């Protein structure tokens, strides 16, 4: 029964508008309560475990220089599992999951029909865009952290762990090498921020989330292909994937921050441009879904 309790137009339940942290909290809750998000994180967590198990079961030692970076070192030191897994995930697995989340941001809400209700609430278009991007960033962080954590766990369980010899020849302790792994995870998270912004931008153009997801993932592949064509060398510094695998600097002693800085600057550029375009598009968009 619909109750017939009369309801006057009072201001009960109203407060002075805050910054709207509740919406961010709700966005994160919805994102991480979703089965799809968990499925992607579990798939990412499986990558380092697969690598570790495969190396463990294989009788022949991996020849240096074959397979992904650092693969040959795993048997000597389990700490390399996390780094190897991150290297393996960067070209496709991570962009794929990030593309799914970033492409879904606005188009997914439009597809569910919730976009109009969020805007009527009123969430505010700029605020919604910012919160949606923040959610995508949180997922980038969660995704790389998952690979790193799962890799560290698999390495510790299956292989001996000890001091690590760096690319520069120096040896660092287990504690410091864990810190370096976290740094690499942070580097890769930053690497994915530009792609997230691209996904957000594409997502404002359509009501079909799958289309936005696919377009984002395809762009990440195209960018990497272009980055491998020597004829387009002039273009390379502008490609958002250009620095994706340049985190070797973080494995030197002392740490060289050059590539981290260049990467962060490039990603910030993509965030600024795509963010501005997404704002321009979304703030004037007729929401008809």
């Amino acid at each position, binding site marked *: *029964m*619909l*109750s*017939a*309790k*009369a*309801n*006057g*137009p*009072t*201001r*009960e*339940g*109203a*407060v*002075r*508008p*805050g*910054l*709207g942290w*509740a*919406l961010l*909290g*709700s966005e994160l*809750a*919805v994102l991480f*309560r*979703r*089965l799809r998000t968990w499925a992607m994180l579990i798939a990412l967590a499986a990558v380092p475990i697969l690598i570790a198990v495969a190396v463990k079961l294989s009788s022949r030692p991996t020849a240096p220089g074959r397979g992904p970076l650092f693969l040959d070192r795993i048997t000597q030191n389990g700490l390399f599992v996390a780094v190897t897994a991150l290297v393996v995930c960067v070209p496709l697995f991570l962009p794929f999951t990030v593309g799914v989340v970033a492409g879904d941001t606005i188009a997914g809400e439009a597809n*569910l*029909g*919730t*976009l*109009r*209700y*969020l*805007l*009527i*609430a*009123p*969430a*505010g278009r700029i*605020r*919604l865009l910012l919160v949606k991007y923040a959610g995508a960033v949180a997922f980038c962080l969660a995704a790389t952290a998952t690979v790193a954590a799962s890799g560290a766990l698999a390495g510790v369980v299956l292989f001996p762990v000890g001091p690590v010899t760096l690319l520069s020849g120096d040896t660092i302790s287990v504690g410091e090498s864990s810190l370096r792994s976290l740094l690499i995870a942070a580097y890769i998270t930053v690497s994915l921020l530009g792609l997230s912004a691209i996904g957000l931008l594409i997502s404002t153009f359509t009501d079909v989330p799958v289309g936005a997801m696919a377009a984002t993932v395809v762009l990440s592949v195209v960018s990497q292909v272009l980055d491998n064509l020597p004829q387009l060398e002039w273009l390379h510094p502008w490609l958002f994937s250009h620095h994706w695998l340049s985190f070797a600097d973080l494995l030197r002693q002392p740490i060289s921050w050059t590539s981290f800085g260049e990467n962060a600057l490039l990603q910030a550029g993509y965030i600024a441009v795509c963010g501005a375009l997404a704002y321009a598009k979304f703030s*004037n968009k*007729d*929401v*008809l879904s």
Partner: protein
Amino acid sequence: MNESRTAASVGATERAAPARSSDLAIETHGLVKRFGHRSAVEGIDLAVPRGSVFGFLGPNGSGKTTTIRVLLGLASANSGDIRVLGREMPQALASVLPGVGALVEGPGFYTFLSGTGNLMRLDAADPHASSSTRRQRVHDALERVGLSHAAGKKVRAYSLGMKQRLGLANAMLRPRELLVLDEPTNGLDPQGTREVRNLVRSLAAGGTTVFVSSHLLAEVEQMCSHVGVMSAGRLVAQGPIEELRSAGQAHVVVQTPDVNLASQVLTRLGLVPGEAPGTGSPWGTTAVLGTGINGHVPEEIVAALVAEGVRVRGFTVENASLEERFVSLTGEGFDVVG
């Protein structure tokens, strides 16, 4: 056809008491919305008085939902002025919308969240909504629409009627000054439809203005104090429901064997004679229909008929039903139920 529609519109609008802007919950002037070259809304002047239950009628595709989208700032108008709750839109969107609850073109929810989860999410989107009372308000809203038992169920498992109820609960999460309900009884069973009607009445009794769009005439007739009729993107009539009803052409039905003579008398009096529908009349008489009684007192007509020697065996004055009125305003193909 078009001219007569415009005339009807002007007639009905003029009869409505001129309302001052501050008395209006929704006010538009020359609102135009085009999609490419196709115009969905062609310059409408809405005037929804505060405290009224305003039925926004029209056939499917007549521009009702588009108008609602523009009013709520989801789409932008190509031209025209809009005021909602006395404030200029879309400039005052952020301060107006917290006072407005809405159900637009059916419910839209996260299918992987529960009913409660969905309302918590949408309430969190409103920066004006207090988070300390959120759980309680969500609980109350669900109870009002009779969804308490399904509050924890995933929306994926909801029926269309349950989703519609959840949509209504969302519109009532906070006390509102204005409720905009687009086809609120879609997908509801007769019981649910009646509950919505009662709910709208109780909200209106509490002082909330309710703007309800519908293509069902019976629904509007039963709960609305005011009506606006849309047809092909134009507002062809609006005003208090009684005025619209009386604006329709009343007609007389004369039971007589002297059909030709009666017709001549009616014509002389300025009525338009015609054949009455459903002539199952007694004593082998025929009914003559005369439309356009306005300006005549019924007994004058009878006197004139008798004076000419017409054997009057039956005489009735019938007011136009609202249904006829709407069909005449919107043309054929109007989906009338009831």
